[in-house]
């Protein structure tokens, strides 16, 4: 029984670690209604600044903390001033994407400066341990808890009793009204970003000391856990973020206790989904709080889409269709095959995110479902590959829609967070469900693509196959969008309350969109499985989901041609920058930032 005490203590300790990130996220969300995907990168920067202070400058602990806090706050101010302020009057999705771009840039800068090897960040506290239960806790555990809880308290006092705090709250409730009342909203934003970044930096330092190591890959995981904790607590609610973090830590710890280590993250993301379904605004959302996003459509940039004449599209299709007959290298063809497969995924996402307004951050899960279905059917039941791919599409449509359906009643950012969680859950189920998916060993020896008994092995035939499938589904989708059904979709996107008042059943239409989108994504995953001949749970990861979202925003949300253009551009860009080696992700991040800044409605605009 004493073990349960240990599990509880361990859960609280790691919960405190999460709280350090979640509090900063909550603060920013409270004011800007923005999920700051760069918070994990600031945490990373804080860890490395701390390393410089401790290992090179030999500063004592209090000075180290101040040094890191000030330096990280400066980074936060720069991000706010140059990355986000120019996007103030832009659509909601623009700053979100900008934070993703900023996180690429920051992570890469740290990696280029410090090399990707992990470093030891020695703790500056004495290593005494106190016996509690069967385990021990040390001064650093207490310091982390102290920083987490006292920063939440301080922030609470600041928001409630100081003048700047009032301004922050006013700005978060109604930005325009606050401006009319004379609140300098820019200053408020600056203050918030500075504070949140200082907290983020200090958390990187403390967590680095806690584990005695920092590495350049730690930012994404920190962001993910921070976001989960924050949303569980109630986005924008600072004390809620602390409680959410502790709860997350406990659930993970008890999950390990009962089911074992490999299920740990599964419970974290299940917790998130359950909380979102039962209390869509988090555990601590006040009843009087206005709904987070009154209209799903506020995500979408108002714009006039670029109309591409039909003949031009026909010419483009013809040119790409005869491309393999021209003297182009297999490398170019393979790159374009990747683009067509990403294009299929983007078609799927642009339909659900652009046409019906449900932004999904877990779309790679649909690829994985399609890929595993198709691979397993053709390997174990000897189903012909063509049929197996179709079955993969159908399975993605059915299972994907079923899994995502709990998120249909959510709005705005919460949809994207729920889909992010569902994406992670699918990946973890694949990892753990060994009797079917072969777990971490993955599936190898998947038969190559074939059609009517002929193997499609050469890049040329794979190219035509994937291009043909993509064009066919794109035409179908274009037809769908211009139909009555497509108009109903857009009505739901633009104003779901009005649409419901008009008699549209929201859940049914959302399901229809996911069924169609799931099919395209599943087919893409199926083709990829047969092309690669080996897949495992890592083949389709969160980065694929983020890439897909970037593609559809680049192309223009809801825009069928835009999805394909975006896919070609984003598969092509890293290839073009390939010569830049270590610098290419940095360049990619900067390109993303410039795009969001100067063309937030996407290259071809929203339909």
């Amino acid at each position, binding site marked *: 029984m004493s073990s349960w005490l240990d599990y509880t203590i361990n859960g609280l300790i790691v919960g405190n670690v999460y709280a350090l990130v979640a509090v900063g996220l909550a603060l920013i969300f409270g004011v800007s209604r923005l999920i700051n995907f760069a918070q994990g990168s600031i945490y990373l920067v804080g860890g490395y600044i701390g390393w410089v202070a401790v290992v090179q400058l030999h500063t004592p602990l209090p000075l180290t903390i101040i040094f890191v806090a000030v330096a990280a706050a400066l980074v936060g101010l720069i991000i706010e001033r140059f990355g986000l302020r120019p996007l103030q009057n832009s659509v909601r999705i623009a700053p979100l994407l900008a934070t993703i771009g900023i996180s690429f840039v920051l992570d890469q800068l740290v990696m280029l400066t410090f090399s990707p090897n*992990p470093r030891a960040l020695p703790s500056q506290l004495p290593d005494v341990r106190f016996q509690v239960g069967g385990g021990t806790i040390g001064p650093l555990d207490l310091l982390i808890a102290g920083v987490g809880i006292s920063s939440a308290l301080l922030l609470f006092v600041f928001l409630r009793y100081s003048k700047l705090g009032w301004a922050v709250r006013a700005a978060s409730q109604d930005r325009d009204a606050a401006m009319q009342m004379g609140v300098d909203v820019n200053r408020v934003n600056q203050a918030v970003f500075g504070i949140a970044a200082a907290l983020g930096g200090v958390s990187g330092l403390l967590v680095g000391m806690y*584990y005695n190591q920092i590495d350049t890959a730690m930012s994404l995981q920190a962001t993910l856990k921070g976001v989960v904790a924050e949303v569980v607590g109630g986005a924008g609610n600072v004390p809620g973020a602390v409680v959410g973090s502790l709860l997350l830590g406990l659930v993970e710890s008890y999950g390990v206790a009962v089911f074992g*280590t*490999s299920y740990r993250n599964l419970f974290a993301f299940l917790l998130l989904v359950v909380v979102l379904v039962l209390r869509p605004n988090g555990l601590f959302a006040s009843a009087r709080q206005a709904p987070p996003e009154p209209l799903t459509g506020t995500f979408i940039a108002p714009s006039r889409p670029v109309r591409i004449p039909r003949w031009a599209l026909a010419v483009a299709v013809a040119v790409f269709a005869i491309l393999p007959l021209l003297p182009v290298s297999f490398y170019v063809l393979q790159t374009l095959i990747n683009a067509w497969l990403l294009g299929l995924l983007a078609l799927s996402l642009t339909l659900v995110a652009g046409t019906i307004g449900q932004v999904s951050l877990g779309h790679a899960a649909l690829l994985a479902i399609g890929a595993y279905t198709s691979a397993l059917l053709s390997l174990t039941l000897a189903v012909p590959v063509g049929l197996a791919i179709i079955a993969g599409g159908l399975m993605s449509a059915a299972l994907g829609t079923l899994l995502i359906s709990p998120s249909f009643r959510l709005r705005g950012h919460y949809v994207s967070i729920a889909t992010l969680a569902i994406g992670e859950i699918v990946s973890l189920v694949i990892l753990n469900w060994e009797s079917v998916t072969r777990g971490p060993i*993955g599936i190898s020896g998947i038969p190559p693509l074939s059609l009517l008994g002929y193997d499609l*092995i*050469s890049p040329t035939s794979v190219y035509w196959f994937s291009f043909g499938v993509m064009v066919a589904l794109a035409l179908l989708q274009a037809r769908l969008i211009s139909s009555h059904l497509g108009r109903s979709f857009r009505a739901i996107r633009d104003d779901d309350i009005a649409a419901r008042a008009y008699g549209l059943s929201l859940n049914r239409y959302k399901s229809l969109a996911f069924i169609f989108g799931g099919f395209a994504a599943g087919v893409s995953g199926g083709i990829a499985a047969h092309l*690669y001949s*080996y897949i495992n749970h890592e083949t389709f990861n969160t980065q694929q989901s983020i890439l897909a979202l970037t593609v559809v925003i680049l192309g223009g949300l809801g825009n069928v041609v835009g999805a394909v253009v975006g896919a070609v551009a984003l598969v092509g860009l890293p290839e073009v920058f390939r010569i830049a080696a270590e610098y*290419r992700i940095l360049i990619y991040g900067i390109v993303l930032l410039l795009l969001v800044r100067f063309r937030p409605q996407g290259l071809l605009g929203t339909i």
Partner: protein
Amino acid sequence: MSNINRRTLVKGSLAAAIAGTAFSRATLADNAEPILLGVSGPLTGPNAQYGTQWKQGFDLALDEILASGGINGRKLAYTFEDSQSDPRQSVAIAQKFVSDPRIVLELGDFSSPASMAASPIYQRGGLVQFGFTNSHPDFTKGGDFMWSTSVSQADEQPLLAAYAVKKLGLKKLAVLHLNTDWGRTSRDYFNKAAKEYGAEIVVTEGYIAEERDFRSTLVRVRDANPDGLVLISYYSDGALIARQARQVGLKQVICAASSVYSPKFLELGGDAVEDVHVGTRYFPEDPRPEVQKFIAGFKKKYNGVEPDAFNAYAYDAMNMAAAVVKIGGTDRKAIRDAFTKVKDVPSVIFGTATFDVASRRVKGAMNAELVVRKGQFALWDGKPT
């Protein structure tokens, strides 16, 4: 095969001509041009550190090869394409290498999904894919153009099991392993061997690569009451587990697979890794000349930095590639055949390496039994800790 090859060559050079690159220089292949190897591996992304370590190992080997006269008088060089260890990118790189007539052999990729996704392209394109970190049991089954110097876990894990069970006398073991293809395969071989030697596996826990917190896992371990912990980990997570094991009050003997062997393991683990036992494939104080030459050269080239296992794999792989190209020349198929002929290549990991033609892997990894004493790896003196 030759059909595809010829077509590839024509396509590749035509495309290059269109792109305005002067490929003719390469196709003429005069002796001033280096013989070129392609490397597909991570330079950015979560595995970036391993690509950086590869480069260090490669560059050292290339310096030595050049100093000893190159490959029949020609220089050997490589071009490193960043795949981020992502299968989408590694397949595109594979097409690029296959259609680039200058590339005679390919090295990499790092992870199994990225490597094995590219295998069919290398196999059909008739270019050897030489994976030197690919311990996935199916990697070399991808075709006769897939070769690997990665030590088969079937070879290594029984040695570790013998160390833990027979020499250290541990009878009840807790196994913690990275839940990847490598960790799983290793765990299965380890558990099987340990049971054969008479030990009992009381608990097995798999964790994902991003995991940082192991306290609750270690409570499970404690409750199973083992007399030894076995870590099938990389150095960074291995160091974390050891630290947290000591923090939660576990005092059992810890044994770890060779993959933790790195100066970083000591740095990241601090006092907590004192007395950890490691079965390793190479050890700096190993008097073998191959090892001493590698370490001296590495420290000289990189300002006194100690090499680690991944540096050694890359160094060995480049030397092996050079030995193969020396026999096979610049013809891709002849290079494939040269893998069956190459014999007793000096190697840090194997002493001397010769391929087992049936498995297309090398057998007979060296094993040194180490223990961490006073913050340093030392040969185990036979005393229990």
